[in-house]
C-alpha cells in the first residue's frame, strides 16, 4: 500500500465532503468474487426458477446484484464534487 493512503473504518471526513467516506464498504466488492468464482456451489439444475436452471439464473442474478453493490459502494465512498 502506498504510504499516503488512509484506510479502515471510521475514516474522518475529507475536507469539504458532506459526509464521512466509509472505506469499509469497499469490502462488499469481495461478494461477487465469492458468489461467481466457485462453480461447485452453483453448477446444478435445481432449484429452478421457472424454466431457468440454478446454474443460469444464479449467475444472471449476480450480474444485477453486482451492479447494485457497485452503485452502492460508489455512492457511499464518494463525497462532494465526486471526491473519493
Amino acid at each position, binding site marked *: *500500500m*502506498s*504510504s*499516503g*493512503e488512509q484506510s479502515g473504518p471510521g475514516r474522518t471526513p475529507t475536507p469539504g465532503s458532506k459526509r464521512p467516506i466509509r472505506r469499509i464498504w*469497499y469490502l462488499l*466488492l*469481495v461478494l*461477487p*468474487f465469492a458468489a*461467481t*468464482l*466457485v*462453480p*461447485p456451489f452453483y*453448477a*446444478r*439444475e435445481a432449484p429452478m426458477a*421457472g*424454466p*431457468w*436452471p440454478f*446454474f*443460469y439464473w444464479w*449467475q*444472471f442474478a*449476480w*450480474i*444485477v446484484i*453486482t*451492479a447494485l*453493490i*457497485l*452503485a452502492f*459502494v*460508489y455512492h457511499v465512498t*464518494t463525497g462532494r464534487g*465526486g*471526491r*473519493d
Partner: protein
Amino acid sequence: MSGIQPVQLGVFAFIFVVVALIGVAAARWRRAESLNNLDEWGLGGRNFGGIVTWFLLGGDLYTAYTFIAVPALVYGQGQIGFFTVPYTIVLYPFAFMVMPRLWSVARRHGYVTPADFVLGRHGSKLLALAVAVTGIVSVIPYVALQLYGLRVVFEAMGLGTTGLGTSLPLFLSFVVFALYTFQSGLRAPALTAFLKDILIYAVVIVAVIYIPLSLGGYGPVFDSARHALAAKPASAKAAFITPAAAYAPYATLAFGSALALFMYPHNVTGVLAARRRDTVRRNMAALPAYTLMLGFIALLGYMAYAKGIHVSDPNLALPRLFQASFPNWFVGIAFAAIGIGAMVPAGIMAISAANLFSKNIWTTYIRHQSSASLQTWLARIAAVVITGLALLFILVIKTTFILNFQLLGGIWILQTFPAIVFGLYTRWFHRWALLLAWAAGIATGTLMAVANAFASSVYAVHLGPLQFSAYAGLIALAVNVIVLLIADPVCKALRLPRGLDETTAPDYEAEIGDEGMPAAPQPQVAP
C-alpha cells in the same frame, strides 16, 4: 441459405459506410487547436465525460468477435461459454478499485500508455519496453479477430469464404478503418461507439424478446440445448451444467480473463481518455449493464438449438439464427451492428498499439528528441501499419492460427500484471525482479500453449500429487509471481541499482483541481 443476400448486403453496406463517414468527420468533434500531439490524437484530448467513456469502454470491451464467438462457444460446448458471465461480473469490482489509480497517476504525469507508467514508476526502460512490446504483439491478433468477425458476417451474407468474394470486402473495410483512425484518432471510435451500441442494444433486445417468444419461451430454449448437448460425443466436451472436472477451468478462465482485460493497451486508452477520476469510478460502477447484455448474447447460442439451426462451423450459429428468425432488412441491421462492432474496437486497438510504438519504442530507443508533432505522425502511420498487418494475418494465415495467436496474446498480456497493478500500489519490487518474472511468465505461458498444440487455453498440471486443469494464463501468472517473490530479495541482496520513481503516493489519488493537476476540464470548442 446459400447465395448472395442482396437486401442484407445493401442494408449492411449503407449503415457501415454512413458510420465510417461520421468517424472520419469526428476529427472536427470537440475540435482541438491541432491534432498534432498524442493527447489529442491518441487520447481524444483526455476530455471524455461519463457517457462518452461508457460507450467507448463498452465499445472496447465487447467487440464484434464477442458477438460471434460467445454464442459459438455456447452452441458448440454449452456451459463453458458462460464463463464469460462471471468474467465480466468480477471484472468491474476489480477495475473499480485499480483503474482510478492508473488514471490519476497518468493524468498527473501525462502518461499516454501503460508502458509510460511502468517507466515512470520503476525507472526501467527495459521493463517499459517489455510492457510495450507485449501490448503491441497481443493487440495485433485482437485486431485480426475483429476482421475475422467481419468475415463470418460476409460469409453468412453469401460472399463465400475464399477468393475475391471475401478478400475484396475485407480490404475495403480495412481502407475504411485505416482512413478513419488516421484522420480522427480516438475521436472516431468514441463518436461511432454511440451508434454501434445503440444498434447492438436494439438488436439484442429485439432478439432476446422476440426469438424466445416465437419458440415458446425460455423453457424450450433450455430443453433443446440440454438434449442437443447431451447427444454430442464425449470428444466434443459439451455439457449443459459444469461437470466437476470443469470447475477449475471455468473459474480460472473467468478470473484470469478479468485480470487480463484491463492490461490490454486499448482498454487502458479508454480509461485514460476520461476527463476526471470520478468519471472512471462512476463508469466502472455503470458498466455491468453490458454484462447483462453479454449473458443474453450467450443464450442466443442455445436459441439456435431451439430454432433447429445446424451448422458445422459454430461461428455461423448466431448469423444463421438471425437469418432464420428475422426479415432480411433487420438481418442487415444486425450484421451492420456487428460490422461497426468490429470497426470501433479495431480503431481503439490500433491507436493504442500505435501510441506504444511511437512513445515507448521510437522516442525512448531511437530518437529521444522527437517532437510531439513527429510522435503523432509516427503513431498515425503505425496505426495504419498495424491494421494492415492484421489484414495480412486474416488474408494469408489460416483462421485457426489467428485464434491461437489471440489465445497466446491473452496469456502474454496477463504477464504485465505485476509491473502495472502491483506498481500502482507499491514499488517494493525491484525492477530487475519484475523483468525476470515477466520473462518467466511469458516463457511458461508460451510453453503451455505449445504443449497444448494451441488447441486449448486450459492446461492440465501434473505436479506429483497435485493434478488440476486451469487457465494457462493464470498458471503462468502464478509462476510469474513466484519468480518475482524469489528474485526480488536476491536483486536487493546483490545491491543492483534501483530505478528512479518519479511518482509520489498522492499522485495515485489525485483528481482534477488538485495541486499539479489541470485546474478544471479544459474548455471545449463547440463542434
